[in-house]
C-alpha cells in the first residue's frame, strides 16, 4: 500500500506530540521509525492505524484520504508492544479472530490459520493459551494474528522491546525475511538504532514530534542532515572547541560552531603508527574499556573528551599513555546549518607520480 | 472501545440513559435531602438539631461506633495477620466465613444477637448481665456488621508485602520488633486505617441490626438512624432530614478521607 502523510499534528492537551510531519512510503517497503522514547513515533503509528485521531493533517492510503475511516476499515495489521493477545483464547482462536469477524467460512479459517501457524513456526502450539508461551512465541502469535486478515499495511509498535536480548537478534532477521517474502508494506517503531539499521529498508528519525530525516540506513549514517541525527546515530563525541584539533584550526570561532566526531572518524596509535604523521596531534589515554571484539578508548585532548575504537590485534594501550590522534573528518553545525568537514591535512603533502 | 455501538444514534442514547439513571438515582436524592432540610430556613434546621434527643442520639452513635471500630481494629488486625502469615488447619474455612456479616441480612443479625444474649437466652441465665437494651448490645451489633472491613482492608497489603523487604531489614541488623514496627506496620497501616474508617462509617449508619436490640430509649440507647426512623414514623420528615444531613456530612467526610488515603497509598 502506498502511504502519504501531510502536515500531521497531534496534541494531547498542551503537549504537542507530533508536529507537522509529512512523508511518503512506497508500496512494499519496510520502514523503521527511530527515535528516543516519547518522541512521537508511536503516536504517528497509532494515527496511521486509526487508533488516535490527528489534531490536524491528512493521511492517504492509495491516494484516498482515510482520516475519517475507523481502524476496522483501514485494512491494517497492528502488532502491539505487549502483543495484546486475547488471553482467554488459544493461539488458534487468537489468529482466527480477524477472520471470524469477517464471517469467513470455517474451512477457510482453518486453512488460513494453519498456513500462518506453519509460517510462524508455531506448529504444535495451536491449543496453548498466551500465558503458556514464551516471549518470542507470543510475538509470533501477535504477528500471525495481525497478518491473518491479509492487511495491506503492517504496523509494529516496538515489536522486540519485550524480548530477551539473545532471541531478539534472531527474531529480527526472521521478521525481516518474513516481511520481505510477503511483500507487505510495513512500518515498525523502535528506539534501538542497531535494530532499525539492521531491519529497515528506510529509516525515519523522529524526535520531539518532528521528522528529522528520512533515508536508507546508509544515507542517514553517511549524511546526517541535522545535529540531532548526527548525535543520535553512532556514538558521537560532542566537541565544543574544534579549533584545538589539528587540521580544524581555521574553523570560525565566532559563529558558535560545534562538532560531532564519530569513533570511526578517529585514528589512534603510538607515535609512528599512523602513516600521515603530519596530520596527527597529541592526546592522552584516559580510560580503556574492553568491548568483547575491540577496545573502546577514551581520549583527552586539551580537556575535551573523545571516543574511538581500536582493534585487539594492535598493540595494547594503557591509561595515561601519550598517543597520536588523527581526525579524519568532523560533523560541524551551528544554529543555522550543518555540514561535514574533511581534515584538509589528509591530502597527501607529497605529490606522487601521476 | 470508543463507542459500544456502530451507530452513533444508539451510542448517544445509551450514554444519555446511563447518565440520567446515575444522576437520578444517586445525585438528585442526595441534593434533595440537603435542600429539604434547609427548606424551612436555617433556623428551623438548627432548631431540629438542638432538640436534646436529636443531638444526644448523634453523640451516642458516634461514641458507640468509635468503640466498635476500636474493637474491630484490634481483632481485625490480629485475624488479618493470622490469615496471611500462618498456615493452620481450618484456615480456608475461617477465611470464607469472614464475609458472613456482609451476606447475612442485618435484621437477621440483630435478631440473632437478641436470641443469643437477650432476656430469655442462656447467656442471661448464666451471667445475669443485662446486655440487650443497653449500650453493649449496640456495640456488639456494630462489631458484627462491620467485622470484615479491617480484615479485608489489611489482607491484600500484607500479601503484597514482599518477604524480601523484611529479610533485607534483618540482613541490615534490624531486630524482630524493630522490623515489625518500621517495615511491616507502615505497610499495614493504610489498610487498617481505611478498613477502620469504612467500619466506622458503616457503624454510624447501621440500622437493621441495632433497632431490634437497642431498646430505643430516648437519650439513653436511641442511636441516630433509629431516631431518624422514629421521626419519619411520627411524621416529622424535616427533623429526620436535619439529623440525616448531619450524619451524611460526617459519612461523606470519612469517605473523602478514605479516597485520599487510598490515592496516597498508590502514589
Amino acid at each position: 500500500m502506498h502511504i502519504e502523510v501531510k502536515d500531521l499534528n497531534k496534541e494531547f492537551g498542551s503537549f504537542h506530540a507530533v508536529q507537522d510531519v509529512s512523508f511518503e512510503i512506497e508500496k512494499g517497503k519496510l520502514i523503521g521509525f527511530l527515535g528516543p522514547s516519547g518522541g512521537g513515533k508511536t503516536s504517528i503509528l497509532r494515527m496511521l492505524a486509526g487508533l488516535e485521531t490527528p489534531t490536524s493533517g491528512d493521511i492517504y492510503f492509495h491516494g484516498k484520504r482515510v482520516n475519517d475511516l475507523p481502524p476496522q476499515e483501514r485494512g491494517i495489521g497492528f502488532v502491539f508492544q505487549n502483543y495484546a493477545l486475547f488471553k482467554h483464547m488459544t493461539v488458534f482462536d487468537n489468529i482466527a479472530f480477524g477472520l471470524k469477524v469477517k464471517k469467513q467460512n470455517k474451512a477457510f479459517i482453518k486453512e488460513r490459520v494453519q498456513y500462518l501457524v506453519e509460517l510462524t513456526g508455531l506448529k504444535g502450539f495451536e491449543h496453548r493459551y498466551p500465558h503458556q508461551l514464551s516471549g518470542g512465541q507470543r510475538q509470533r502469535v501477535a504477528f500471525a494474528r495481525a497478518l491473518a486478515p491479509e492487511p495491506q499495511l503492517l504496523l509494529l509498535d516496538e515489536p522486540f522491546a519485550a524480548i530477551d536480548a539473545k532471541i531478539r537478534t534472531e527474531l529480527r532477521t526472521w521478521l525481516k525475511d518474513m516481511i520481505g517474502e510477503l511483500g507487505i508494506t510495513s512500518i515498525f517503531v523502535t528506539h534501538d538504532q542497531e535494530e532499525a539499521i539492521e531491519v529497515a529498508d528506510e529509516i525515519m528519525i523522529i524526535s520531539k514530534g518532528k521528522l528529522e530525516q528520512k533515508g536508507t540506513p546508509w544515507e542517514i549514517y553517511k549524511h546526517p542532515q541535522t545535529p540531532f541525527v548526527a548525535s543520535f546515530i553512532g556514538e558521537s563525541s560532542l566537541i565544543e572547541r574544534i579549533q584545538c584539533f589539528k587540521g580544524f584550526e581555521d574553523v570560525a570561532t565566532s559563529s558558535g560552531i560545534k562538532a560531532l566526531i564519530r569513533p570511526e572518524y578517529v585514528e589512534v596509535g603510538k607515535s609512528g603508527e599512523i602513516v600521515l604523521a603530519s596530520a596527527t596531534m597529541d592526546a592522552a589515554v584516559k580510560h580503556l574499556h574492553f568491548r568483547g571484539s575491540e577496545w573502546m578508548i577514551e581520549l583527552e585532548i586539551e580537556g575535551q573528551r573523545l571516543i574511538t575504537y581500536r582493534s585487539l590485534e594492535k598493540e595494547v594501550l594503557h591509561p595515561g599513555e601519550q598517543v597520536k590522534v588523527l581526525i579524519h573528518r568532523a560533523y560541524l553545525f551551528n544554529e543555522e546549518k550543518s555540514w561535514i568537514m574533511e581534515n584538509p591535512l589528509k591530502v597527501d603533502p607529497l605529490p606522487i607520480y601521476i | 472501545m470508543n463507542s459500544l455501538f456502530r451507530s452513533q444514534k444508539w451510542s448517544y442514547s445509551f450514554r444519555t440513559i446511563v447518565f440520567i439513571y446515575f444522576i437520578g438515582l444517586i445525585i438528585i436524592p442526595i441534593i434533595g435531602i440537603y435542600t429539604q432540610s434547609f427548606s424551612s430556613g436555617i433556623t428551623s434546621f438548627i432548631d431540629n438539631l438542638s432538640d436534646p434527643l436529636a443531638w444526644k442520639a448523634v453523640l451516642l452513635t458516634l461514641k458507640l461506633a468509635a468503640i466498635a471500630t476500636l474493637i474491630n481494629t484490634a481483632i481485625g488486625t490480629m485475624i488479618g495477620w493470622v490469615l496471611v502469615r500462618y498456615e493452620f488447619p481450618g484456615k480456608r474455612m475461617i477465611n470464607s466465613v469472614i464475609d458472613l456479616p456482609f451476606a447475612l441480612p442485618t435484621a437477621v443479625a440483630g435478631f440473632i444477637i437478641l436470641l443469643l444474649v437477650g432476656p430469655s437466652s442462656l447467656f442471661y441465665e448464666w451471667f445475669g448481665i443485662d446486655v440487650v437494651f443497653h449500650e453493649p448490645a449496640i456495640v456488639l451489633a456494630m462489631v458484627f456488621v462491620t467485622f470484615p472491613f479491617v480484615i479485608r482492608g489489611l489482607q491484600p497489603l500484607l500479601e503484597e508485602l514482599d518477604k524480601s523487604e523484611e529479610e533485607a531489614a534483618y540482613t541490615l541488623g534490624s531486630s524482630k520488633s524493630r522490623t515489625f514496627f518500621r517495615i511491616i506496620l507502615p505497610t499495614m497501616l493504610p489498610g487498617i486505617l481505611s478498613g477502620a474508617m469504612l467500619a466506622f462509617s458503616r457503624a454510624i449508619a447501621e440500622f437493621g441490626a441495632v433497632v431490634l436490640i437497642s431498646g430505643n430509649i430516648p437519650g439513653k440507647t436511641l442511636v441516630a438512624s433509629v431516631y431518624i426512623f422514629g421521626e419519619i414514623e411520627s411524621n416529622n420528615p424535616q427533623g429526620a432530614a436535619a439529623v440525616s444531613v448531619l450524619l451524611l456530612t460526617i459519612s461523606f467526610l470519612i469517605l473523602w478521607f478514605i479516597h485520599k488515603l487510598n490515592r496516597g497509598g498508590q502514589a
Partner: protein
Amino acid sequence: MMMRRLWITLTYIVVSLLLLLPLYKIFTGAWADGLSGFMDALLRAQSLHALKMTALIVIIVTVINTLFGVMLSIYLVRATWLSPLVKRLSNSIVDLPFAVSPVIGGLMIVLLLGPNTVLGTMLGNVGVSIVYALPGMVLATLFVTFPIMVREVMPVLQEIGDQQEQAASTLGAYSWYTFWKVTWPNIRFAVMYGVVLTVARSLGEFGAVLVVSGNIINKTQTATTLVYQDVENFNVVAANGIALVLAAFSIMLLLLMEWTKKRKEVH
C-alpha cells in the same frame, strides 16, 4: 512459636463466638417448636407474600444494577468523550450510597416522591404510587446497592487495559463484537461476583425498605421487615423461621462468593 499458637487460638475463639455461634443459633432456634412450628411460621400467608416480594425486588434490582453498573464502569474507565475531571468526580459520587445510612436512603425517596410531594402527587394523579408500593422499594434498594457492581468491574477494566480491545478493532471488530468476545470474558467473573454481592445486599436490605414500604402486611412487607415485625410482636419462633430461610440463602451466597472470587483470581 508460642505467640503463633496464641494468635491462632485467639482467631478461632473470636470467629467461633462472633460468627459460628450465631449461625448455630439460627439453625437450632427455628426448630424450637419442632418442624411443624417452623413450617407454620413459613407457610403463613404473610410469610409467603413477604418472600415473594423479596424475590421480586432481588431480581429486578440485580438485573437493573448489573446492566447499568457494567455500562457505567465501561464509560468511567474507557470513554474518551468524558473529561478526566467528570470521570474522577463521578467515580467519587458512585461510592456515596455506601456512606448513606439505609434509613436515610429511604427517607430521600420519601422526601422526593412521597404522597405529600409535588412529584408524588403528580404521579399519584396518573395512578402511579411510588412510596408505600413496590416501585419505591425497588428504587430504595437500587440506591443502596448501586456502587457494588461498579466497584467490582471498574478495577478489572482498568487492569486489563484497552490494548486487547484496540487489537480487536485493528482486526476489524466493532465494539459490540469486541465487547462480547474480548471484554466480557475478562470481566465476567467480576460481574458474577458483583451479582452475588448485589443479590446478598438486596436480599438483606432492611432500613431503606422499611421506611419506603410502610411495612404493610401482605402488600409491601418483605422477608426482613417481616422478621422485624414478628420480633416486635414477640413471635420469636415465627421470626426465626424466616430468619433461617434468609440465613440459608446468605450462606449459599457466601459459598458462591468464595467460588467466584477464586475464579476471578485465576484469570
